[in-house]
């Protein structure tokens, strides 16, 4: 079988899983839905590997394969096929997506065991994987948009999975709407592309782009900026990031899968995929890179302040994606994607560990209330630390190599790209601090009551409640599940975490400066047309220098964190009081939500109200009322004249004749 066949199977299996779970929701017993879902993804993963193998069989120049099922829509000059593109980039992406997804499915089998929406959950989750695969495998821009929107919808569905929670449904809506804004950006980009290039297919598009566009021509910059709207909306980059922290309303595995490992990195994939266009629009690429930088620092600072465990990780995700965006924007494609992969490993791991901890806390997510799970949750604690180390780019972990490769590339490119490198290192320092803020808060110090109980073998139990509002959950429908699962007791969770833990540590060795460059080589066919890819080589020396700097900053950060949260825990209190303004600024996430609320949402609602009250009532109904009033007015006259006085009638007859006679006299002259 050819690589494309495998790719179709990769697409089809999750869809099949989704449909089976959706249609059989009533009849599937026990954990069957979970196993079906996981099995489908596992098979998809195997097929991805097969696709990889099949692709590697081909010569490097022949590794871009297309295939289409049927013509989706073809009329009036548009020709949209249901086609896929299999090339190293998409194969890399499907490997990461199916791989991580498989583990998260596995984790979910246990984690959501007691949830009443079990089959629905796996159906959604499989649908998400299908969508994500469609996104990365799409062979044309329209199909990309379809996949793009599908993942947006899947994300929405999973965020508001516990649809009895108002916070969850609101968060889902926010995510959906912002994602649609992104879609709109892509749609507009598609229009421009079609107008300029006359096609939506990737390969012809990329081939003709260099001929059609001159560098930094207005149109191509517009296209790229519109693509960036889509990418940033999906990847939660400034200024379209606000939905991601709220998306933590979803079940924790969902956060791990969608809002950390896969979906949010779609923007990175998109920028990488569209690199031939960005090459023609360096301005757009630079804008992207600097927005990425801004995002990574912004998110890191917020992560220092927020207290919700999942939201800390969420801001961390925003921040890390900032790195990737910087990477793919400046031409460090392989590095960016490398970081995408390692981030998928350690971030998914972090979420899983966090899920385990939250379960142990009976649903509480506030880290101020957690402490000392070291002994209560030894396995979870260990893997939490592993994840944090990788996140903090502790020397030797996956995060260490991938992050530094991006920064080294930025430094190598020189010019103002140095700013990116320096900013990236500052971010790395902050990252180390907040990563270990989690660790020191959760794992160390005196055990909290829940931890103490657990040490005695009693898993904490509380009535399910909304972690944001404290509102009691409507348990009538049973979700979130009344029983909690921790990794220590549920084997599937443990296995998934263990595998990810290995990835988080050893994933980095795919690409060690001077030693090997597996990804670089593999991805080369996709990026060989880019002068940045072939032209700029980071020398091993520079790379190692960067690694050294990164290691130093990481250690420094961990140390700082240790000082702040373990040695002198009251320091944070004092800081909070002393720099109250800064703290408020951070805890309110730089007031983005408030600003959007004032600038976008309220005006829209106000416009709506205005339209309802003024335009609708006064103008639209006014037209009606005016016409009716005019008719009524004449009616009053007509009926008033109909006074019942016969002499008045006669008067009108004579008067009417007088007028008529006058007319005739005038005509006669």
């Amino acid at each position, binding site marked *: 079988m050819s690589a494309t066949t495998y790719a179709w199977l990769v697409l089809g299996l999750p869809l099949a899983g989704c449909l089976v779970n959706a249609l059989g929701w009533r009849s599937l017993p026990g954990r069957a839905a979970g196993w079906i879902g996981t099995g489908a993804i596992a098979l998809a993963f195997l097929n991805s590997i097969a696709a990889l193998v099949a692709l590697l069989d081909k010569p490097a120049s022949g590794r871009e394969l297309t295939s289409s099922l049927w013509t989706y829509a073809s009329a009036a000059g548009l020709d949209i096929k249901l086609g896929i593109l299999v090339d190293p980039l998409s194969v890399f992406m499907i490997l990461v997506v199916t791989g991580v997804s498989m583990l998260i499915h596995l984790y979910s089998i246990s984690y959501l065991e007691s949830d009443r929406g079990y089959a629905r959950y796996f159906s959604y989750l499989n649908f998400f994987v299908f969508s994500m695969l469609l996104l990365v495998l799409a062979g044309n821009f329209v199909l990309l948009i379809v996949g793009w929107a*599908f993942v947006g919808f899947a994300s929405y569905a999973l965020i508001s999975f516990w649809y009895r929670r108002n916070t969850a449904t609101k968060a889902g809506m926010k995510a959906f709407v912002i994602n649609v804004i992104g879609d709109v950006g892509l749609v507009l980009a598609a229009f421009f592309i079609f107008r300029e290039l006359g096609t939506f297919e990737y390969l012809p598009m990329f081939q003709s782009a260099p001929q*059609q566009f001159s560098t930094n021509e207005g149109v191509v910059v517009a296209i790229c900026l519109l693509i960036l709207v889509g990418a940033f909306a999906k990847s939660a980059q400034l200024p379209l990031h606000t939905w991601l922290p709220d998306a933590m309303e979803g079940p924790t595995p969902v956060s791990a899968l969608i809002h950390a490992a896969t979906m949010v990195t779609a923007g990175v994939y998109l920028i990488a995929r569209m690199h031939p266009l960005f090459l023609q629009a360096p301005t757009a690429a630079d804008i992207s890179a600097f927005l990425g930088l801004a995002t990574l620092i912004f998110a890191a600072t917020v992560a220092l302040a927020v207290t919700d465990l999942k939201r800390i990780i969420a801001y961390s995700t925003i921040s890390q994606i900032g790195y990737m965006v910087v990477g793919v924007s400046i031409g460090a494609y392989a590095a960016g994607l490398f970081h995408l992969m390692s981030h998928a490993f350690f971030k998914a791991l972090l979420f899983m560990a966090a899920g385990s901890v939250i379960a142990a806390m009976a649903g509480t997510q506030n880290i101020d209330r957690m402490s000392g799970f070291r002994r209560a949750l030894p396995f979870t604690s260990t893997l939490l630390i592993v994840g944090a180390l990788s996140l903090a780019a502790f020397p030797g972990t996956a995060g260490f190599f991938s992050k530094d490769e991006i920064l080294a590339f930025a430094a190598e490119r020189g010019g103002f790209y140095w700013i990116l490198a320096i900013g990236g290192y500052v971010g790395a320092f902050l990252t180390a601090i907040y990563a270990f803020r989690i660790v020191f808060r959760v794992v160390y110090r005196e055990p909290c009551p829940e931890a103490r109980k657990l040490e005695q073998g009693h898993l904490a139990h509380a009535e399910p409640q909304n972690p944001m509002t404290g509102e009691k959950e409507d348990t009538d429908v049973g979700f979130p599940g009344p029983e909690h699962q921790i990794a220590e007791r549920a084997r599937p969770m443990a296995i998934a975490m263990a595998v990810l833990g290995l990835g988080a540590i050893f994933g980095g060795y795919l690409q060690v400066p001077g030693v090997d460059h597996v990804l670089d080589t593999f991805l080369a066919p996709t990026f060989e047309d880019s002068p940045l890819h072939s032209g700029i080589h980071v020398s091993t020396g520079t790379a190692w220098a960067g690694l050294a700097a990164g290691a130093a900053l990481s250690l420094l950060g961990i140390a700082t964190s240790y000082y702040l949260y373990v040695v002198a825990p009251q320091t944070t209190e004092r800081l909070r009081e002393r720099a109250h303004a800064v703290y408020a600024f951070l805890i309110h996430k730089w007031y983005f939500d408030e600003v959007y609320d004032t600038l976008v949402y309220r005006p829209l609602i106000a416009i709506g109200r205005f339209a309802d009250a003024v335009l609708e009532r006064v103008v639209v109904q006014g037209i*009606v009322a005016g016409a009716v009033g005019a008719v009524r007015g004449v009616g009053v006259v007509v009926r008033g004249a109909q006074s019942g006085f016969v002499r008045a009638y006669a008067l009108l007859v004579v008067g009417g004749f007088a007028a008529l006679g006058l007319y005739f006299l005038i005509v006669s002259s």
Partner: protein
Amino acid sequence: MIQVILWLPLAAGLLCFVVPRRAVAISAILGSGLVLGLAIALVASFHTAEAGLQHTVSESWIPDLGVRYQLGVDGISLFLILLTALLWAGVTVFSSFRMPDRRRIYFFMLGLGETATLGAFLAQDLLLFVLFFDLMLMPFWFLIGAFGGENRIAATTKMIVYTLVGSLLMLVAAIATAILASDQVGQLSFSIADLRAHTLSTGSQQWIFLFFAAAFLIKMPAVVVHGWLPDAYRAAPLPVLALLAGVLSKVGAYGFLRVALPLYPQATVQYQELILLIGVASILYGSVMAFTQTNVRLIAGYSSIAQLGFITIGIFSLRPDGADGSVLQMVNHGLVVAPIFLIIALLWERSGSEDLARLGGLAMRAPVLAALFLIVTLATLAMPGSANFIGEFYILIGVFQAKIVYALVAVVGVALAAFYAIRLFQRTMHGRLAENADSREIALRDAAVLAPLVACIIALALYPGLILSRGQAAVQDKVAAVVSNSKPVAPNAPSVRAESGWTSYAPLGASPTRGDR
């Protein structure tokens, strides 16, 4: 065959007066079901590549007035006929489970309405079209007035008077068209084909076009002239509303394609921007209103305004792609809006309210209902992957290439649609269960109506080409009529093009500088 399709519903409706009371619904269902079957057969026997009419019927009717009984099908009307038959069958079945008091007259009026609507889609004689166009209103006036809710009589009368404002002006305009054309030919004929062969002078085209446009825009309705909509939508019985929003609103848009473009090409070009402006205004206004309303009917109603705005601008992009998209979107919108109203009926049965504030949480015990609703919602907001998306995509790409500014503004509507559609779904199905609401699963009989409709939505989502490929030849023909006719005849055509230059980009390859690079 189309004769049978056209008159069968009326015959079935008349039959309702004769058969015993118990068999009334059965006869109505049989009638509409047969029509649906015939409509499917019609689609199956359609020759895709032909631009002209098929299955034509042409009989002398009122020779003294030059009116002929001319029917025909082409790629534009084909699926609208199918849509009509489908929705009518669905609504008939749906209604038969909720048998109204005076069932005979109810089903008779439904049948009459179907005949009138099909007649409007089939008519190839201008006057016949106008006749059916006006006739359509009567049964709906009646259905709303006799079976509707609060304040129904005033609302329905307002609707019919308002809509007839346009229709009667259209009647005058249609007659004027024929009379003025007969001055050229010497023989009075209302046949659209004949009239097309002799287009009028620019001056007469202008006012005639405006009259027609008024009729069509009111019918759709477009913004500013939608004053009848809120009241009528509030009062109408929901199955009837499904038809009103699902099918009747399309007749206006269809009329533009069938009548306005081919017969008044110069005027079409002249008023292109005006209509585009109205269309875009409809999109924005409809969307904004849709997300401020709390009455679910009105949300759906205003969203229809927005959707029809899209359809309008698609047609008035005066490009094949835009118009193709409009044809597709007409069917799509009919397919989604009708289920929405039927679902609203189900929601009402469960909660006794149509206000968002008093709805909520109905998904709990009704996952199938929720799933059906969700699919419909997603299609409504033109989620990529749905046929609605392809429709909007075509429309917007057409407008984009014709008048970019309008496309950019219209795109905002896409984002707003996401907001109000999801809001509608969420506030009804999600959240806490509302007081007095009873989350009940959809009954099998209702599912039997809704599921096929949803299946159609999904099928079209997978293969929108079904409609696009059949429509494109006819659409091409209509648009070409404008493009070819507007240039040589109109003395001021060049200046029109020049005026519109500030919004329109030159197409690819048109500027010589590009080739140099």
